């Protein structure tokens, strides 16, 4: 287990004060939160007056919150070409304006950790992706610890936990501790623990105080410690079965394994796994416009699609489904691990819940362990 950072601030947030606090937050930032929408829990921008729709009970929103830092489509620049009377050409490129700060409210610890995995890609190496950086710099993450992890959860297989703080500025821990059932909306409270300066500022603001965010009562410090530790020590159902994921070096020798043929036979190349995944970041770039002006944007792409690597002259290095299926699992479990020293998965379980043919990462990890080298 990674060491636990010392909290910068701890507060008590009464459940009845949540709405007012979130309303206060919306004043200066865009707030994105899990919202019950036609029966589904979706991560989306909160409209004014929607505070009561926030769903802190459903463990998995259908989509992950990754759109806050890598929108599904993101304008990079606008272009305008003109020709003057003498036929002289000119081209004007305008980078898109900086985004509004975003507060991700009610993110699960797995999704918060996923943001950090994006940082490895977009902020390190010889090139810093400044479109990403401006979104990341403006991002504040308020996570909520999981009282009862879902059946498909396996964050613990990656040394994360239902009470973990990685990637979060503040974590909210329901004061009643982990457990079954839904706490009564009209009672109870959260311990709010800030792990960063940004989180501390959020909890210490006058708006927070006005909404009822209060100091933890004297003498309750031990309870807080106990509750936080209980969340951190919580096991996940699938994580318990899977154990710690340990296949990176084994996969070094399995690129040519016939196993990938077997896995690919089940895949229908729909790309659902890549779209719901909080750690899949591969993108494409395209132009949209006519008459000399338009916008260049990037968009979520998927390695599961045959066109992903298709080159202009017709060559495709991954023409078969076997190669594309292998790419996604190798990227998450081997290539990324080689590059950044950790796995590109946080065990959220969305692929387990969403794949129409039941082909998902924990299953592949289990099967890879059983393969002959």
């Amino acid at each position, binding site marked *: 287990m990674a060491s636990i950072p010392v909290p910068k601030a701890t507060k008590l947030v009464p459940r009845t004060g949540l709405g007012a606090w979130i309303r206060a937050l919306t004043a200066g930032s865009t707030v994105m939160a899990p919202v019950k929408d036609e029966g589904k829990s979706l991560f989306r921008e909160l409209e004014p007056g929607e505070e009561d729709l926030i769903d802190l009970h459903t463990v998995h929103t259908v989509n992950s919150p990754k759109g806050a830092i890598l929108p599904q489509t993101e304008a990079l620049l606008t272009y305008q070409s003109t020709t003057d009377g003498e036929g002289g050409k000119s081209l004007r490129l305008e980078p898109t304006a900086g985004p509004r700060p975003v507060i991700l409210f009610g993110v699960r610890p797995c999704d918060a950790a996923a943001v950090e995995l994006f940082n*490895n890609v977009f902020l390190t190496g*010889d090139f810093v*992706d400044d479109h990403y950086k401006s979104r990341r710099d403006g991002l504040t993450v308020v996570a909520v610890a999981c009282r009862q992890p879902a059946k498909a959860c396996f964050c613990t297989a990656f040394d994360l936990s239902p009470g973990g703080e990685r990637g979060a500025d503040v974590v909210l821990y329901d004061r009643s501790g982990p457990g079954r059932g839904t706490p009564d909306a009209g009672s109870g409270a959260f311990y709010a623990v800030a792990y960063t*300066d940004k989180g501390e500022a959020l909890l210490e603001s006058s708006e927070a105080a006005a909404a009822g965010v209060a100091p933890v009562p004297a003498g309750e410090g031990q309870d807080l410690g106990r509750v936080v530790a209980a969340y951190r020590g919580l096991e996940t159902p699938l994580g318990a079965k899977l154990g710690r994921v340990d296949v990176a070096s084994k996969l070094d020798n399995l690129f*040519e394994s016939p196993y990938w043929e077997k896995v690919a036979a089940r895949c229908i190349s729909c790309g659902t796994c890549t779209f719901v995944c909080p750690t899949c970041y591969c993108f494409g770039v395209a132009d949209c*416009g006519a008459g000399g002006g338009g916008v260049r944007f990037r968009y979520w792409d998927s390695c599961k699609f045959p066109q992903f690597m298709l*080159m202009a002259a017709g060559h495709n290095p991954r023409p078969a489904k076997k190669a594309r299926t292998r790419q996604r699992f190798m990227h998450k479990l081997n290539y990324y691990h*080689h590059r950044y020293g950790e796995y590109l998965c946080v065990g959220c379980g969305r692929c387990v819940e969403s794949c129409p043919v039941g082909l998902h990462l924990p299953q592949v990890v289990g099967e890879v362990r059983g393969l002959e080298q």
Partner: protein
Amino acid sequence: MNANLVGPGPSGETPVVFGGSAAAGRLLVPEVATIIDIRDETASGDVKTFKVRMDRPEAEEAWSHLPGQCAMVSVFGVGEAMISITSSPTRGWPLELSIKRVGRVTGALHDSQAGDKIGLRGPYGNRFPTEEWKGKNLLFVAGGIGLAPVRCLIDYCLAHRDQFGHVDIVYGARSPGDLCFKDCIFNRWSRQKDTTVSLTVDKGDETWTGPTALVPMFLEELGPSPKNAVAITCGPPIMIKFTLQSLAKLGFTDDQIVTTLELKMQCGVGKCGRCNIGDKYVCVDGPVFTLSQIKELPNEF
């Protein structure tokens, strides 16, 4: 707290905020550039060389590339493609890009005229390790448009002629009309000190009295010595495949063979997750690899 977001990467290198697009200050936003000249390289017109200049003098000044590196070229409204830089840095601006018409972006470039505006960003990728070649004989083996990135390197090496031993250039194309850079291969290069240019075509015509042989066979006939030599090869996949076999027959080891790869790219800076072979990205870890490095990678390109 944001300081930790741009801290050293896991491999310990300090990230650098890219300053190539200084006006925009944005990684994926190109500089505006102008096509100032377009020249047909082949009889059929399927390969053209574009001379381009950046519109902002400061951007030209900030630009510095080395042989092997590439540029992302934009035709707005159509898209962007990674193109190898054909002109040696020793020749300064304008930059030359030799491009075969294969798809949408290259097609739009071929349909453009001098004076048209494009986008340019880079340079990207690693480079040929010329400092490791000091005192060595250089053997260049190229086929068709594969001479484009190698031309940059040959001019660079010839500009630093005293640092290298004998220079052998072996070049072939499908037909005499498909030979690119005619001024270089027929005039400029062969006049250099201790430099030979050997040309072949797959199929000759009435204008051709030279050898007709596929590049790998032609190379074996020429029989260059691997002693104290480096072989640099670039061309279509099928040519590369057999050229590598011929070089092995001639006694070249995997460490003595250098090539440059290409894959589909969208960002060119190691972010979009597109051009990987195993854990290497061709855009930032390549495009230049030795054969021994390539043999370490999964066979998927």
